[in-house]
C-alpha cells in the first residue's frame, strides 16, 4: 500500500506533468510569434482587445442629426479598437422635461471629466440647456479652429484662425423680465473675473500653439461699460505676454473683414454672443457646420462637439449629415485623453477624405450619406495605419 500510494502519487504527478506540457505546447502553437506550417497571420488586421486602461467618456448625442453623428463616431471607435467606453446619455427634447435626466447628464460629465456631445434643442418650457451645461459645469472656454480645406471649394482660401469664446456669461445669462407690458429687459453680464480668465486662456492657448497674434473683439464704442471691461481685461493680460501681438477690433468691422480678408486673423478672443456669430461666420467660410470641430474647456472638464451648433432637425433620421465635424471633435478628444496615435491617425484620415474629395455629403455638393462618409473615413484609417 505504501508503494501503491507512491505510485499513485507518481501517476498523478505524471498526469499533471503531461497536462502542463500539453498546455505549454498549446500556448506555443497559438502564440503569434510562431507559425507552424500555417500562413503567418498579421495581428494588425484584428487589433487585440486591451484589458484595463479604458477611459469612460460621456456621450450625449442630442437632437436632430446628433444621434446619427454619434453613431458614426461609435462605429469608427469600435473598428479602431480605441480604448474608450461611452456612457451614452440620451438627452433630447422629450427627456428634457425630466429634471432628473438632465442632472444625471451633468453628474456624468463631472464624474468622467470628458464629454462628446451634439446639440440639444431647447424645449419650449425649460431654460436653455446648452447654457446650463456651460453654467453648471463652468465650461468657460469654447475654442473653434477654422482652417481651410484644399478639397472644399469656398470663397476664400488660406484661412487658419482660432475663435475663442467666453462661454458662460455675457448675453447668455438668461436674465430677462417684462418690467411693463410691452417692454422687455434682457441683461448682459460681464464680470472682471471671467473676462480675465478667458483672456488668460486665450493667450496661454496662443503661446502653446505658437500663434502670433490675439485680437480682442468687442463693441465698446457702444457698450462702454460692459465690453469696455472685457476689453480692459484683455489688454491687461496681454501685457504679460509681450511676444504675442495684441490688437482690438470692433465686432461689425470684424465681420466685414472676415468676408473681405479673413487671412488676417490669428487668434480671436471675445464675449459670448460675438463668439457665437464669429465662429459660425468663420465656419461658413471654411466649409460649414459639417466640417468644423470645437473643444470646450473648464477647470477639470473638457467637452468636444461640432463647432457650429445646429441640430438640422429637418434632416433628422435621413442620414445625410456630414459626420466629419463630429469625428474630428472625437479625434481631439482622443488627443486630450493622451491617445495621440489614434487621435492623429483619425485627424489625418478625415482631412484626407475631405481634401481628396473621396466622399461628398450634401453640404459638400454631393449626395453621399452619413454611412458613406463613415466608411470612407474608416478605409482611409486602414490605408494610413
Amino acid at each position, binding site marked *: 500500500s505504501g508503494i501503491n500510494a507512491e505510485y499513485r502519487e507518481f501517476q498523478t504527478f505524471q498526469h499533471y506533468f503531461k497536462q502542463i506540457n500539453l498546455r505549454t505546447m498549446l500556448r506555443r502553437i497559438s502564440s503569434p510569434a510562431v507559425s507552424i506550417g500555417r500562413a503567418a497571420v498579421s495581428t494588425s488586421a484584428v487589433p487585440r482587445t486591451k484589458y484595463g486602461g479604458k477611459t469612460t467618456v460621456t456621450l450625449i448625442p442630442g437632437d436632430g442629426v446628433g444621434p446619427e453623428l454619434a453613431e458614426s463616431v461609435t462605429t469608427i471607435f469600435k473598428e479602431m479598437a480605441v480604448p474608450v467606453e461611452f456612457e451614452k446619455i440620451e438627452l433630447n427634447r422629450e427627456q428634457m422635461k425630466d429634471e432628473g435626466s438632465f442632472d444625471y447628464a451633468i453628474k456624468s460629465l463631472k464624474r468622467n471629466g470628458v464629454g462628446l456631445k451634439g446639440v440639444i434643442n431647447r424645449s419650449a418650457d425649460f431654460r436653455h440647456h446648452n447654457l446650463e451645461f456651460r453654467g453648471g459645469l463652468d465650461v468657460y472656454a469654447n475654442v473653434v479652429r477654422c482652417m481651410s480645406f484644399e478639397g472644399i471649394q469656398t*470663397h476664400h482660401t488660406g484661412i487658419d484662425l482660432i475663435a475663442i469664446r467666453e462661454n458662460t456669461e455675457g448675453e447668455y445669462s438668461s436674465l430677462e*423680465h417684462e418690467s411693463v407690458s410691452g417692454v422687455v429687459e434682457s441683461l448682459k453680464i460681464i464680470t472682471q473675473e471671467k473676462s480675465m480668465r478667458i483672456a488668460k486662456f486665450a493667450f496661454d492657448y496662443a503661446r502653446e500653439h505658437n500663434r502670433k497674434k490675439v485680437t480682442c473683439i468687442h463693441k465698446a464704442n457702444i457698450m462702454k461699460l460692459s465690453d469696455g471691461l472685457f476689453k480692459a481685461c484683455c489688454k491687461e493680460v496681454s501685457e504679460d505676454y509681450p511676444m504675442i501681438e495684441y490688437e482690438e477690433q470692433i465686432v461689425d468691422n470684424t465681420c466685414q473683414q472676415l468676408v473681405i480678408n479673413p487671412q488676417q486673423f490669428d487668434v480671436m478672443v471675445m464675449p459670448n454672443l460675438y463668439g457665437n456669430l464669429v465662429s459660425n461666420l468663420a465656419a461658413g467660410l471654411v466649409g460649414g457646420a459639417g466640417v468644423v470641430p470645437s473643444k470646450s474647456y473648464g477647470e477639470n472638464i473638457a467637452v468636444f462637439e461640432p463647432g*457650429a451648433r445646429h441640430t438640422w432637425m429637418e434632416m433628422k433620421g435621413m442620414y445625410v449629415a456630414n459626420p466629419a465635424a463630429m469625428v474630428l471633435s472625437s479625434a481631439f478628444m482622443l488627443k486630450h485623453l493622451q491617445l495621440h496615435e489614434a487621435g492623429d491617425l483619425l485627424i489625418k484620415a478625415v482631412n484626407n477624405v475631405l481634401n481628396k474629395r473621396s466622399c461628398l455629403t450634401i453640404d459638400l455638393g454631393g449626395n453621399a450619406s452619413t454611412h458613406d462618409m463613415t466608411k470612407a473615413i474608416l478605409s482611409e484609417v486602414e490605408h494610413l495605419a
Partner: protein
Amino acid sequence: MFLSRALRSSCRSLHTVTLFPGDGIGPQISESVKKIFDAAEVPIQWEERQVYPILEPNGKTRIPDDAVESIFKNKIGLKGPMRTAIGKGHVSLNLTIRRTFGLYANVRPAKSVPGVITPYSKEGVDCVIMRENTEGEYSGIEHQVVPGVVQSVKLITRDASRNVAEYAFQYAQDHGRKNIVALHKANIMKMSDGMFLEQCREVAARYPEINYREMYLDSACLKIVSDPSKFDVMLMPNLYGDIFSDLTAGLIGGLGLAPSGNMGKDGIAIYEAVHGTADDLVEANKGNPTALLMSGLMMLRHMGLKSQADKIEAAVLETLTERKVITGDIGGTATNPEYADEICRKIRG
C-alpha cells in the same frame, strides 16, 4: 404756354432737401454729389447745415437748432460722415441724430457692384437689411453692480418692434421684394427676441403675398457666407442689424460703397453714408463719394424721382465697370473730383 407750363411744373416739383456735409471727406464728397445731381438736372435745391454736438448742462447732447428745424421742414435729408469726439462726454452724434428725429428703421441695401470684384461677385448679392434703430442693445443703459461686475440692459419694446416690422413689409411690397426673413436669437433671449418675433409675425399675417420666415442669427451668418444670393430682405433688432449690415457691405466690397437710409416718423427720411470721415484722404481729396451718391439715389427714389436716379446710377455703374477713373479704395488712382467729373460726363452723354 408750353414754356410757362414747364416753368410752373418745374417750380412745383423743385424739392428742398437738407444736406449735412459732415466732417473729414464729408464736405468734399457732398460737393461731388451736388455736381452730379446738377448734371442730371435733378430738381433739388440743397439747404446745407452744419451738425456738431452741443453738450447741455443737464448732460444731454443735442444738435444745432437750425439743423433740426431744417429737417422738420423739409422732411428729407442727406448726411455725410460725422466724427464723434471721444472722451468729451458726448453721446455719439449719429445716435443723437437718431433720437432727435425718431429714426426708427435703418435700411441698408447691399447689391453687388459691377466693376468691384469680390469673392461673392459671381453668385451676386442683392439683399436689404432692415434694422430696428432706436433700442435693443443700444439703449446705453449700463451700470456697475459691484466692482468687477457690469450689467448692460438690452431693451426691446412692442412698439418699436412693430414699427420696424411694418416699415419692412411695406418696403418689400413697394419694391417688389418677395421674401422677408427675421433674424433673431430667441433660443437664448427668449423674451426679448421673442417679443420682436411676435410683432414680426403679426405684421406678416397682413401681407400674405410676402414669404415670411425666421432664422437664427448664427445660422444666417453660416449660410450667407456660403451663398448670399439666397437672402432677400432681412429684418432684425439693433445690434444684429449693425453687425450684419457691415457683413453684407463687406460682401459687396466694403463700406465705401454701401448706401443707407433712416426712416423717422411723419415722413422724415435721412439718407447717409455709413463710412468714416477718412481724415487721411482729405488733403488729397481722394475720398470715394459712391456711398453718399448711392444713398442720394435711394433718396431720389423715395421722393419719386426715379428717372433721374436711374440715369445717375447707369453712369456710376458704367464708370465703375470701366475701372478707368475710379478712387483708391477700389483699386484706382483718381481723385474725388476726377471721379465725379467722369460720372457727369457720362450723364451728359
